[in-house]
């Protein structure tokens, strides 16, 4: 692990007994005790994740809003200060460069939170498409990011002076002081649970993580790693770049049409409109395995006895007690209830297209999935 980068919390993770794995060039905790226990904590009480490896890019200047409008699949000039929007960066082939959340931090200022693995590519992409007069600043190394997720999240923040944050509605953010550390807190997350993402100075990340663990102990807060983060987001049917999304995949095929404003001109819009006109070649569906076995990323999917696609993400769902997954299939086989088969070690195991998200909730008036 000596060549891997470390977040400000790496030493703390090791002290807590985390199993560390390489992820996007960082040494990250995959779990501390058990992926299933950590997953259940996020659904039943609360879980705390270190996601400091993710990238933060600031856009500033009089043309920042126009720049964000040009780059993102949804308008950002219409995003009010204090609000967050999920969107896509698309390429000229109509595929996806990255998925991200955009924060309106000022009249002429935006904070983009991007996937760790795509940070360098996103930075280059943004710089290439940014007009003069827009400052593009990579703040990733200076920023720590913690995700506090689960029904007890607001109560836990209240223990460390964050009671006012419980008033935040979903997809809103505020600056606050939590456990004596300045944070930007948003009511967002990647788990399908209620919760918050807390941006702080890199130097405050470890003390904040520890303060939250202490304050959250009586509320059932557990530290949680990337293993649980992945099973949680899968239950919420949230896409993962590199699995459901990539440079060739149309966001329309991924079912992300509601995050595209195709009547606007943004980078990639014309190509997506063209592909939409040509008709979708495939559709992303959620399925559950009805036979005995677990579907995993890369396994072939059969429809009407023929290979029709591949599983993009698959795992046992701790909440549902059965194996679930996402796969691209021909649109003719995408209807809810369609029988499919997943090839597991040479055998065809029955499965069925189901509604997504697999597990959902509603938080502060907005769906979490």
């Amino acid at each position: 692990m000596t060549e891997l980068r470390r977040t400000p919390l790496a030493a703390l993770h090791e002290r807590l007994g985390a199993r560390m794995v390489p992820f996007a060039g960082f040494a990250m905790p995959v779990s501390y005790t058990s992926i299933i226990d950590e997953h259940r904590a996020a659904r039943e009480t609360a879980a705390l994740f270190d996601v400091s490896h993710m990238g933060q890019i600031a856009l500033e200047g009089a043309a920042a809003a126009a720049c964000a409008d040009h780059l993102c699949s949804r308008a950002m000039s219409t995003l009010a200060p204090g609000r967050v929007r999920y969107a896509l960066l698309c390429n000229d082939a109509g595929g996806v460069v990255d998925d991200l959340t955009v924060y309106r931090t000022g009249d002429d200022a935006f904070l983009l939170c991007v996937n760790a693995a795509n940070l360098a590519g996103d930075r280059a992409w943004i710089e290439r498409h940014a007009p003069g007069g827009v400052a593009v600043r990579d703040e990733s190394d200076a920023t720590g990011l913690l995700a506090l997720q689960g029904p007890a999240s607001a109560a836990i923040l209240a223990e460390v002076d964050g009671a006012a944050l419980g008033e935040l509605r979903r997809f809103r953010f505020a600056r606050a002081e939590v456990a004596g550390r300045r944070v930007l807190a948003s009511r967002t997350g990647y788990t399908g649970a209620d919760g918050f993402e807390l941006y702080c100075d890199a130097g405050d990340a470890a003390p904040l993580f520890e303060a939250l663990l202490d304050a959250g102990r009586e509320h059932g807060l557990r530290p949680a790693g990337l293993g649980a983060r992945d099973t949680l987001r899968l239950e919420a049917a949230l896409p993962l770049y590199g699995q459901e999304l990539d440079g060739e995949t149309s966001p329309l095929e991924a079912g992300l049409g509601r995050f595209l404003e195709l009547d606007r001109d943004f980078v990639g819009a014309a190509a997506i409109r063209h592909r939409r006109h040509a008709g979708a070649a495939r559709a992303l569906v959620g399925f559950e395995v009805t036979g005995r076995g677990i579907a995993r990323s890369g396994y072939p999917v059969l429809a009407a006895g023929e290979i029709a696609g591949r599983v993009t993400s698959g795992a046992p769902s701790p909440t549902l007690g059965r194996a679930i997954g996402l796969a691209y299939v021909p649109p003719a086989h995408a209807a809810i209830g369609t029988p499919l088969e997943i090839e597991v070690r040479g055998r065809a195991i029955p499965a069925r297209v189901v509604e997504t998200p697999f597990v959902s909730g509603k938080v502060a008036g907005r769906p979490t999935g």
Partner: protein
Amino acid sequence: MPETLIPDDLHYSEHDEWARADGERVVVGITDYAQQQLGDVVFVELPLVGSIVTGGEPFGVIESVKAVSDLYAPFSGEVTLVNDALVARPELVNQDCYGEGWMVVVRPAGDATGGLLDAAAYAKFVDQRSA
């Protein structure tokens, strides 16, 4: 790393399986070290009764939340009993790997435990990999 349990009265393979010999019945499972490395066991695929297994070759599959791993036969023989409890409760492998988490009973074709490690040798083998 937490302590791993290595009972004295068992034999062990370098694929982290244990064998408890009782005449023609040799019970086989995976060790405490193996279940710790795997994490939560969510699926176990075992051979049918009557299957022939070959020492050193895969005879089944064990899946954790994130990974799929082969199970290796510690010696050659015929499967005479399979732990069906692991179908509904694969977590028994984590909870009681030497007891309720047993996997198969095998009638050995020849010498079952001669080629295996004793507890002390297995403990050394575990230490080498944990360093």
